[in-house]
């Protein structure tokens, strides 16, 4: 049961123009493993994961080429792949009890729904699943709601869970709860977890493998331990350097990247990161680098060939 993305390319059509959101992306995810898709807003990480399942922003159409398959067939939302969204308060209906929303994805006779909801809420580690099932969203904390969202994603017994920034909207202590719940479920159910995040701390804690996205392409991918300890792409290096460290002296200047990601409505010549890259060569602004041994960068290719 391996989830495979092959040369996945997604072009989005909002009201006006076209956005080259995802370009020629390939990866695979095996049961029991966690692949983290890392990138900043607009890098295409969410579109790449959700557009092939038919989940698009409202009013936007998409042109998808390449494929996303689970054991060679197109995965079905709910029964093959469950999705946990970023912001539980906006994903849940405030007027319906949490329990009834948790079982939305499971096609169950009415009578069995409540029992199944309680079972699912217990599965994600809510301390009082009966009370949680009967509660309205506003009666639960952010961390509890996010776990209820995970329960909902599991209602159709999927083999793969896609979690889109599952902890971004939460306070630090709640983040811990949600990550614990995800790790625990993955182990017990043998789930494959596709974790979309911009938070390097979450990657370090959860991921087996990492794919770093920039401007709709994977610029670096590999085992999490390798990518985090010895990043090779200048963008990955910059991203890791920008994470504030606990032992830094007060008043120290912050490290980050200059500039901003490119406009994806326009055709990009060469390497999309070149205008912000401290190491850029002449070739970087004219030729697009290929992904070789998990890194897509002229500078590295150049260094190796010498």
């Amino acid at each position: 049961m391996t989830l495979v993305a092959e040369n996945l390319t997604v072009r989005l059509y909002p009201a006006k123009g076209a956005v080259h959101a995802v370009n020629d992306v390939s990866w695979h995810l095996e049961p029991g493993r966690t692949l983290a898709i890392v990138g900043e807003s607009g890098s295409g990480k969410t579109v790449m994961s959700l557009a092939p399942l038919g989940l698009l922003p409202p009013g936007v159409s998409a042109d998808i080429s390449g494929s996303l398959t689970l054991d060679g067939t197109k995965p079905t939302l709910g029964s093959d792949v469950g999705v946990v969204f970023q912001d539980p308060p906006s994903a849940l209906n405030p007027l319906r009890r949490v329990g009834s929303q948790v079982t939305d994805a499971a096609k169950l006779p009415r009578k069995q729904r409540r029992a199944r909801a309680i079972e699912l809420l217990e599965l994600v580690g809510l301390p009082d699943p009966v009370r949680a099932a009967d509660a309205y969203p506003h009666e639960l904390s952010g961390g509890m709601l996010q776990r209820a969202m995970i329960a909902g994603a599991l209602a159709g017994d999927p083999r793969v869970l896609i979690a889109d920034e599952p902890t971004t909207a939460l306070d630090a202590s709640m983040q811990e709860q949600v990550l614990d719940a995800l790790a625990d479920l993955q182990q017990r159910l043998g789930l494959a977890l596709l974790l979309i995040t911009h938070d390097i701390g979450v990657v370090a804690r959860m991921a087996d493998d990492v794919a770093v996205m920039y401007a709709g392409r994977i610029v670096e991918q590999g085992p999490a331990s390798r990518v985090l300890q010895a990043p090779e792409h200048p963008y990955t290096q910059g991203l890791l350097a920008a994470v504030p460290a606990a032992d830094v002296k007060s008043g120290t200047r912050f490290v980050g990247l200059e500039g901003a990601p490119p406009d994806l409505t326009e055709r990009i010549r060469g390497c999309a990161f070149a205008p912000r890259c401290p190491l850029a060569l002449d070739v970087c602004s004219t030729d697009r680098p290929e992904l070789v041994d998990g890194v897509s960068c002229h500078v590295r290719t150049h260094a190796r060939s010498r």
Partner: protein
Amino acid sequence: MLVVDDVRVRFGAITAVDGVSLTLAPGEILGLVGDSGCGKTTLARVIVGLERPESGRVFLDGEELLPKRRELRRRVQLVFQDPESCLSPRWTIGRTLEEPLQVAGMGNRRERVARVGELLELVGLPQAFAARQPRALSGGQRQRIGIARALASSPDVLVCDEPVSSLDVSVRAQVMNVLLDLREELNLSVLLIAHDPVLVHQASDRVLSMRAGALQPG
């Protein structure tokens, strides 16, 4: 010197801020951390005059910051979490920055345009940005405009409520370094409110921690 003395704010049965006192010296960056709902944003709103406390007072250089004293109020400004909220999508950056000068009746048109250029320079952006529309700016640049707008009235104190939490990690440094530079160049006092303790520690001279409306000891 900004002094907050025993401020208390209640919303119905909930005490959002429960007797908070603090001081902020010129040129000091004071960090304030706490989980969402701890009352840190309400405290910020009291300091800039957007929220009236049930009891307690706020002083700037020994004078009380009452709602009626607009001249004094101008010396304490708020930088919002989401820069979108202070940028009109239809106005150029120049117009957005000029508006507060106009409202305050500062100078003639030419002097105001010159001041807009100064404000852009203070936040590390080229003067040509005055002609741009907000949508042509990145998130980090927009937040720097938010800071520039707060600086328009030449304040002594900047209250920054989660100034970088809506920004990507790689561009947060641009905004944080602007705050460090402003303290250096203008001897500005900054109250830096955020939920990320590591980021706050790096920027601040002192850090206070808030929980359930009150400052935590230690």
